[in-house]
């Protein structure tokens, strides 16, 4: 038993490091009251160290803590993605005047980021329903606090409250679904659920209800329509850094958990069974059609509503809803090709979406505004930032030669291979709609003259370096995407799935 736990702990190093850094950050905040600069550095160091241990886990595939969590390439991929995002967010936070203006509580801020990262790591690897709920709760609770971190801003508290109410509701529904599933199968780990459904058979209607309820929980995390109502308000009210974090990492963790849950629970795992594209254990229930409809609703609503937004954070919030819709197209297929496409999309999305939020943050730092009008003439006031923003937005639209195009290409390709052509058509037309609102920003930056203040906006070298560090992969992966695809292809391996 002890040996087993020790063995498990050795596979749990990334998480352990995060916990350690979290404690250190809190302590340092208490001890070094005069020097507030220590906690951020601890956070950054902890994240780097844990990312290092994540990369050490490459190729491992095993269960730890008696089947609570797995370490497999799929989980490692998402942990890597989340870790990189967290590091970038910490860097952003160094330059965010919103965050830096709350020096007194800054230790709290960085410890919460570590806790949030920990929760997402656990989400990526959880294979037991209880562990899944715990991980979701850890993530949710910390994000509620972080969303309301700038207490002084009224919309921040509103955002936090809204987030919490929606979160509580959806977690409640999800728990209910989980309890039904447990009642049906008598197992809490998803392999047991799979075996139970495969060998004993269950009542289909009850199963349908249970899974729909669980889907609510996932839908909330990835802000899929119709569980997206919290997203715009939270994204608008939260500090930009947190918004960026939620829009990428939290979504990634949600997708990781959802894909794992569906693949492991409902796909025939017996040797020599059906091919993995078939959701055989849910015969009679056309699961992928339900997901397809959610996907279409999500991207269409996200894109159409984004057209009317004048606040950049809200606009990007709706755009991120739309992107969740695109990625759901890959979940519809749920073949290896579909999952690989989602992973590729996430890597691309990481750079372009964080980049877009970073620009919003930089501009808000200087102008104090987030509305689209304050971007008028930005192209003449700060060409580097504006041109970078163009690249991010073009990538979000999915135009070559940017990485966003590769993400879309692989999604469409996966759909074509599985003969879901109508869905690919809907997705393609959606990107035309999305062009309209992204171009509105371009138009204000370059086609309009600055409203009142025409003076150039200067940014520090370090800020520009971080910006360029995001621009380069956005273009590079558009021109040469082989490493991206190889990484994704290697990462779709899940523990226990052929």
């Amino acid at each position: 038993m002890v040996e087993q736990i020790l063995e498990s702990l050795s596979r749990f190093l990334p998480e352990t490091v995060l916990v350690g850094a979290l404690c250190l950050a809190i302590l340092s905040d208490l001890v070094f009251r005069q020097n507030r600069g220590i906690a951020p550095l601890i956070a950054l160091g902890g994240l780097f160290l844990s990312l290092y241990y994540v990369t050490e886990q490459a190729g491992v595939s095993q269960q730890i803590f008696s089947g609570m969590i797995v370490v497999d390439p799929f989980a490692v991929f998402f942990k890597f993605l989340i870790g990189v995002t967290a590091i970038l967010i910490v860097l952003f936070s160094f330059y965010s005047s919103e965050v830096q203006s709350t020096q007194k509580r800054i230790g709290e801020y960085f410890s919460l980021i570590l806790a949030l990262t920990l929760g997402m790591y656990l989400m990526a690897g959880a294979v037991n329903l209880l562990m899944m709920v715990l991980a979701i709760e850890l993530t949710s609770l910390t994000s509620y606090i972080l969303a309301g971190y700038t207490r002084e801003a009224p919309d921040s508290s509103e955002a936090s409250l809204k987030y919490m109410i929606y979160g509580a509701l959806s977690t409640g529904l999800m728990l209910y679904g989980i309890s039904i599933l447990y009642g049906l199968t008598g197992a809490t780990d998803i392999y047991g659920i799979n075996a139970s459904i495969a060998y004993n058979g269950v009542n289909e209607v009850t199963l349908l209800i249970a899974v729909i309820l669980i889907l609510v929980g996932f839908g909330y995390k990835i802000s899929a329509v119709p569980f997206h109502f919290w997203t715009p308000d939270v994204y608008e009210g939260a500090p930009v850094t947190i918004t960026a974090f939620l829009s990428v990492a939290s979504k990634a963790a949600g997708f990781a958990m959802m894909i794992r849950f569906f693949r492991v629970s409902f796909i025939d795992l017996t040797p020599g069974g059906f091919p993995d594209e078939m959701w055989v254990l849910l015969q009679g229930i056309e699961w992928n059609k339900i997901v397809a409809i959610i996907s279409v609703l999500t991207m269409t609503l996200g894109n159409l509503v984004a057209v009317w937004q004048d606040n950049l954070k809200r606009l990007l919030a709706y755009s991120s809803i739309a992107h969740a819709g695109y990625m759901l197209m890959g979940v519809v297929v749920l073949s290896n090709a579909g999952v690989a496409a989602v992973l590729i999309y996430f890597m691309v999305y990481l750079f372009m979406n964080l980049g877009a939020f970073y620009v919003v943050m930089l501009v808000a730092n200087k102008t104090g505004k987030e509305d689209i009008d304050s971007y008028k003439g930005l192209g003449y006031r700060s060409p580097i930032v504006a041109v970078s923003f163009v690249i991010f937005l073009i990538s979000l639209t999915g135009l070559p030669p940017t990485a966003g195009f590769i993400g879309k290409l692989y999604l469409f390709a996966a759909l074509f291979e599985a003969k879901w052509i109508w869905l690919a058509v809907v997705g393609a037309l959606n990107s035309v709609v999305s062009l309209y609102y992204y171009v509105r920003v371009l138009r204000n930056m370059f086609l309009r003259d600055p409203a009142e203040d025409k003076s150039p906006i200067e940014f520090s070298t370090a800020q520009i370096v971080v910006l360029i560090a995001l621009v380069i992969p956005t273009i590079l992966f558009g021109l040469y995407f082989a490493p991206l695809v190889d990484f994704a292809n290697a990462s779709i391996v899940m523990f226990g799935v052929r």
Partner: protein
Amino acid sequence: MELQFLGIGILSWITFLPIVGMVLLLMIPKTNENAMKWTAALFTFGQVVLAVVIYFAFNRGMTGINSLEGMQFVEKATWIDIKSVPWFGRILIEYFLGVDGLSVTMVLLTALISFLAVFASWNIEKAMKGYMAMLLLLDTGMIGVFVSLDFFLFYVFWEVMLLPMYFLIGIWGGPRREYAAIKFFLYTLFGSVLMLLAMIALYFSVTIPDPMTGEKIHTFNMLAMMNPANFEPGSILAGLGTYWRHLAYIALFIGFAIKVPIFPFHTWLPDAHVEAPTAISVILAGVLLKMGTYGILRISYPMFPELAQWYALPLAILAFINIVYGALAAMAQKDFKKLIAYSSISHMGVVLLGMAALNTQGMMGAVFQMFNHGTITAMLFLIVGVLYDRTHTRDLDAFGGLAITMPKYTGIMSVGFFAALGLPGLSGFISEAFSFLGAFQTFRYITIASTLGIVLTAAYMLWTLQRVFLGQPNEKWAGLPDINGRELFTLVPLAVIVITLGIYPSFMLDLMTSSLNHLVGIVVSNGGAVAIVP
């Protein structure tokens, strides 16, 4: 045939030379506008030199289209090669360039028009650096589209053009520039996502064996997509005339039709043309419109030969609508630039008619008309630009008797005008005659009806000439200076080409004959490589 410099093939040079220019240009200090202009001019001139080299080195007897051996100046390198995984075959994207008789004319045209466009932009008032940078980026995109033989590469270049064009219209355009720019952008993107879907479908349907291992690999190689034997049985686009093939053909067609533009997808064109600055109108009409017809000839026809035949009649009808509707609409315009814009729609109709004929004469007429329309319409837009620079109005009724105040201008203008209305002895006549001749064999009545367009064109062109240049001089414009040296420099080369090709069209026709013969052979034999001897 290979031409290399510093180990890099001539087509790579001609494609990426503008990008090199753009990078250098971005390093020039903001205040030194002259250096920017001359850098742009230098690099586009380099392109013209390369184009001339290509013109002389081009082997007139080689076919191209679907045969690798028939392609010239080929450059082929593996760009992206992702090894196969059990659930997804190997992905091979090549950096594959080459020209044949179909594309070489377009490369020549693009190099020439881009060079002249730099001079037509000499008086840009704001943000010269950004303007020239965008122009050069656009230039690379245009040449890239014409030399790519890998569909993926083609698509990348196709999309690269969108953003510079949006900014060029949107920042430096006329009063309604924002509307025109976004309309252009949305329309074109709509077309290109449909093209993207068709491209993915083709990708999944076509496999070629790996020369080393014999393993079947999916490819974006256009030539492989033209060979019916490469279509995997049971794949989505396998077979002939199937439902999915029709859908893919239509998707591609809409993508290209928006660029041409073919009625009813033409509404972006008048807006974009009127709002764009002169040089951009020249590029838009001179080169970008050709991409639509080029795409149909390069991609739709040889990859879907049976559908090219099936849709020949609808295409001919659309061509008729383009010709007559464009001409009628042009006649109703009061704005000089809008008139030229609609005349473009009409003239592109002639290209479509020649293509629909599916015989060598028609096809030669079509491709020659693509080239001639490029030069003639470029002239017309430059002519309008000259006048607009001086008077800041394009109202046709505001002028009169300009022949007295601006005699040199009137002289060069008449070359453009008469070429546009198809006067024998000028290049436009030859290509129109070929198109109609070819189409007459296939669609007798549609062709007869379409000739109405020629009469209408003569009517609006002459009427315009009369209103602007003849009659009582308008007192207001009494002191207008005549055309200056720089403006002449942009117009004279075009006029020389128009006249030379009018007298001796073989300079251009010889380039394309064997390739187009071959293309017709491919289409009428449903993809078989049977060439028709002329």
